[in-house]
């Protein structure tokens, strides 16, 4: 299962937190900070997996992330998810954002934080993967935006 999805920028400022474990707000911030600290020192030519953070859940928990320009897209997952599968899923999320916002940049995500949540909700529901095709995601999102 997916335990959390974070989007934060190079300075660690949160742009989206979607935690599927019903954490309280302090814990959630703490986890975000830990994740950021683990990721920030890594270079782009390093692999996109981090294992073994005790705070986030020990050996059963993996951080899988991608870095696009100023933003990090981070998935925290347990061992039942495939590492490369999740990397593809992050790609699906980013492509969907790009299609929905037309050339997405950090500012879009800052100002349309709620919309980003709605897009993510088309891909993941309660930590379970719902859709892996960005076409479907974009279609469903656009349809719902039209509703008055």
């Amino acid at each position, binding site marked *: 299962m997916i335990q959390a999805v974070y989007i934060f920028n190079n300075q660690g400022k949160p742009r989206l937190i979607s935690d599927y474990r019903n954490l309280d707000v302090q814990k959630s911030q703490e986890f975000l900070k830990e994740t950021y600290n683990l990721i920030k020192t890594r270079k782009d030519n390093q692999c*996109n997996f981090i294992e073994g953070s005790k705070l986030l859940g020990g050996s059963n928990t993996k951080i899988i992330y991608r870095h696009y320009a100023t933003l990090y897209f981070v998935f925290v997952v347990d061992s039942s998810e495939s590492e*490369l599968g999740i990397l593809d899923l992050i790609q699906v999320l980013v492509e969907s954002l790009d299609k929905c916002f037309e050339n997405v940049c950090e500012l879009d995500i800052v100002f349309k934080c709620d919309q980003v949540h709605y897009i993510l909700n088309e891909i993941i529901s309660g930590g379970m*993967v719902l859709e892996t095709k960005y076409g479907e995601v974009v279609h469903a999102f656009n349809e719902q935006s039209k509703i008055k």
Partner: protein
Amino acid sequence: MFEKSLADLIRGIRANKKNEASFIASCLEEITTEIKSNDIDVKAVALQKLTYLNMMGYDMTWASFHVVEVMSSSKFQYKRIGYLAAAQSFNKDTDVLMLCTNLIKKDLASNKMYETALALNGLSQIVTPDLARDLIDDLLKMMNHSQPYIRKRVVVLLYKVFLQYPEALIMSYPKLKDKLEDQHTSVVIATVSVICELATHNPRNYLPLVPQLYNILSSSNNNWLSIKIVKLFALLAPEEPRLAKKILPVFGLLLESTSATSFAYEILNSMIKSGLIKQANQSLIALSVEKLKEFIVDRDANLRYLGLSALSELITIFPQLVTAFTDIILERLDDIDLSIRRKALDLVPAMVTKPTLMPIVDKLMSYLFKEEDEWFNNINIFTDKDYRNCIVNNILTICSKDKYANITNFQWYIYILCNLAFVENISVIDSVAKQLMDVCIRLRDTPLKKFFIDKMVELLKNKAIYEKKFIKSGNSDILYVAAYLLGEYRSTINVDNIEDILFNLTTNEVKELSEIVQNSYIIAILKIYIYWVLKSDFNESSIDAYKQITTMLMDKLQLFIVSSDIEVQDRANLALEILNKIYEQYDPINSTDKKLIEGIDNLFKGELKPVAKKAQKMVPIPTELDLDKVINPESQDILNEIGTSFADETKYFWKAKLRAVKPKKVIKELSKRELEEARRKRNQSKKNNPFYLDFDEDTKSQNSFYEAEIDNIPIVPFTYKFGTLIK
């Protein structure tokens, strides 16, 4: 009053970077009033803003009632805000959840598909045992919803429902099974995902699904779906031995034909993790090895990392396979990605053999002594303590494996161990010292021991180890081992070198070293000096050397006597006293009688030998030993006595406990006079008490204790014949 929109809020926060906290505090105040508004437009926007602030770490649990209000709005966009807020802030203890059952029921039954979807998505985050029980019937009906968009959401939600309300699994299992045949791939994906999660808890129950899953796998053209099914098979295979035979050929074919790397990796990983590969035939194993090699040398760091992860599990199953990977693992020790290096490093112990040990260790050593700039640009590996410790531990582990079985050249290993003391930025001394001692004690070969001792002398003389950085990191404590071994194996030292060694043991740098080293130095000085006096035949011409060395040592021992460490002082005094006696009473030229010196040397006799862990078992039990024999006939009485006194003691403790719980005396306020009286009494008793040092000005002059008249203390010559002691 004009309310801020979400965009206004975000703009405001960005404009007030300097006083963000106070700006947000004022916004929160506005939100608190806006959210209570009767106007749903105002309320919804306020909630939207609050949800945003929640992401930044501000609490919103207080607004749960307003969340429900917005959720029940008839406007879709507001409903959306409400459900998002609920998903983000509700937990199982949220009291308003009880109010939600009917609201969610209504939304689930809505004729607008996206409203239903909102409720399903919200429920996946906030479902509780109560909600699950109340809503399961509605959900089961919806599994046959006309829209696949809804069906997939219901299926995925079911897993969360099962977690809260396990009875639901039995109710919905037949329908769930049917969903594996759904016409829409996304529903099938959702179903497989749910079964995959369920199988992690209880794989046996899902074995009957194998034929269906098998069909889906062979016809699937969705990467995610294929990966999930392979993962599912990995969970099921250990439960059913016959499965391997059926599934392995399929895995082989897919592995060979697939162009999707993620799928190929998952097949490999699943075969290895589940142990399925144990039953694979030679060609499939060969193919797996080939694929794994491709991953480990791939340009993509992710594949290299995952490849090494899978390999480390593979060689626990087939240890012999590691030889095929030796070269590429060694290459990965130079990877640009530190986490990949660590993975490769973990694999090193498994692949070391007699012939490869030396080159591998030499390579590892080279990482420890490279210059900073030689490492890749921004990452300073030179100071990465974890990584460096990992290398050192790796070297020590692979060399000492099976009692140094893989080491063919001990001179080389002694050299490596000595060099490890010069590793910068980390403290390695504990493990290195242990091995140095261990190796030295195990050496039986005299020339090798001589080499070892020479190496220790070299270490002692090497000024580099006295540098601040090594003292600070504790690595200069290796001198403790050097001094100890020199003292212990003094008979191996060339007598001509002894003066030089003694000189090096008493240089001025010594006082910078830690107490452990200093202690070891003092004893080493004593041992080596005594040995030297014993072995040398002094005559008229060499007597000066004897005098010179002895006085030099007596003089230098002062270095230790002024140490702040009490043990160093103690030992230094002891050594100095012994030297004094020898100097006074021993005449190296005329005395044919070396008893005094031999006597002291005897104190240090006895060879240190390694003891095997099971050594005690090898000692036969003496036949005359009778453990049941009564040694002391009166012992029973004594034991009884102890028993009763112990009983008394427990009684005493019991009483003490009772006393302790008595209420404390009420402290009464003292008047000024009483205070003064008490103070005077205390001072008086202080004065009469010899354990108090009183620093009061007027008492000082009266007290002769403070007037240092050390010169007046009579010195009594201390004569004690050591010779009489040792006979």
